[in-house]
């Protein structure tokens, strides 16, 4: 079965079309946009919270989007085992909504970072990472607030339950501080909830799908998700 992806659109989302284009036009799955003021997920099988600057990043990233009407439906969808992926601002919204633990602080450099980076796949057993055929993938990041923070007990919980999916690394998978683009604790780039159906990641897989871009590692993530419906 081909899954239907629902891409949520907030005022200020700017990677919504990239996500839609990649899953529908490049990878050939079904996709639809859902405006944040709606409450119906329109039978979507997978929800994508896209990147951007919802509500202008005012107050804190994701803080206001978290109270958009669609979020209640997404929370119940996730509680019933529905698959949700939050990318960049989408990850920040998941944190504010409490669907994932922790917060996102400003990059340590105080600079917006936009570049291709390497990610070590820390957990390849999840439905988001199962079909990634290598241990290191290359995907772009573009954010000013991607400095993941959580208290010590949350962090040890994440490590213990294998909830960290991606860590910033070198091309060969070394995860030292040198390869940390934003100051994230333990080089964290992407995490998953305990139930393993909600994932947030700062890098943009939707911007590494189309072969014309000469980078396609992001497609592994969407394929992984889609293959869980087979």
């Amino acid at each position: 079965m081909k899954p239907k992806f629902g891409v949520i659109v907030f005022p200020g989302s700017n990677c919504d079309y990239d996500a839609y284009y990649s899953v529908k036009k490049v990878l050939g799955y079904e996709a639809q946009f859902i405006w944040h003021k709606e409450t119906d997920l329109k039978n979507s099988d997978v929800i994508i919270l896209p990147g951007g600057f919802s509500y202008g990043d005012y107050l804190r990233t994701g803080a206001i989007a978290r109270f958009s009407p669609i979020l209640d439906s997404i929370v119940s969808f996730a509680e019933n085992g529905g698959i949700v992926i939050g990318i960049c601002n989408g990850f920040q919204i998941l944190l504010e909504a409490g669907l994932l633990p922790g917060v996102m602080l400003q990059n340590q450099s105080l600079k917006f970072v936009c570049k291709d980076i390497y990610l070590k796949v820390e957990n390849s057993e999840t439905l988001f990472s199962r079909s990634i055929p290598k241990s290191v993938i290359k995907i772009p990041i573009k954010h000013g607030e991607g400095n993941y923070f959580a208290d010590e007990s949350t962090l040890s919980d994440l490590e213990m339950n294998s909830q960290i999916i991606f860590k910033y690394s070198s091309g060969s998978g070394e995860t030292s501080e040198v390869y940390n683009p934003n100051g994230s604790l333990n080089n964290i780039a992407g995490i998953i909830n305990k139930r393993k159906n909600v994932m947030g990641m700062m890098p943009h897989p939707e911007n590494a799908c189309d072969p014309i871009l000469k980078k396609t590692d992001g497609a592994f993530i969407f394929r992984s998700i889609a293959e869980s419906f087979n």
Partner: protein
Amino acid sequence: MFKATVIIKRRPKILDPQGKAVEQGAKLLGFNNVRGTRIGKYIEFFVDTNDKSLAEKEVKEYSEKLLSNPIMEDYEFILEKIK
């Protein structure tokens, strides 16, 4: 009617790169005694009720649910009756 002033501070244990960068500016200006610059938020608004305990409850909930994120921030507020 009440006027509420909410001050949001980053928890002491959480790094404040912005405060650190600003403090470098202080050093450049020659303020050698300045230490521990931290940047927070100052938010003010009105609460249109005459019931003080209701006003307090609303300010508290607003601060906890939206204005601050308890994982990284603490808040305090002042409530003044204005008419």
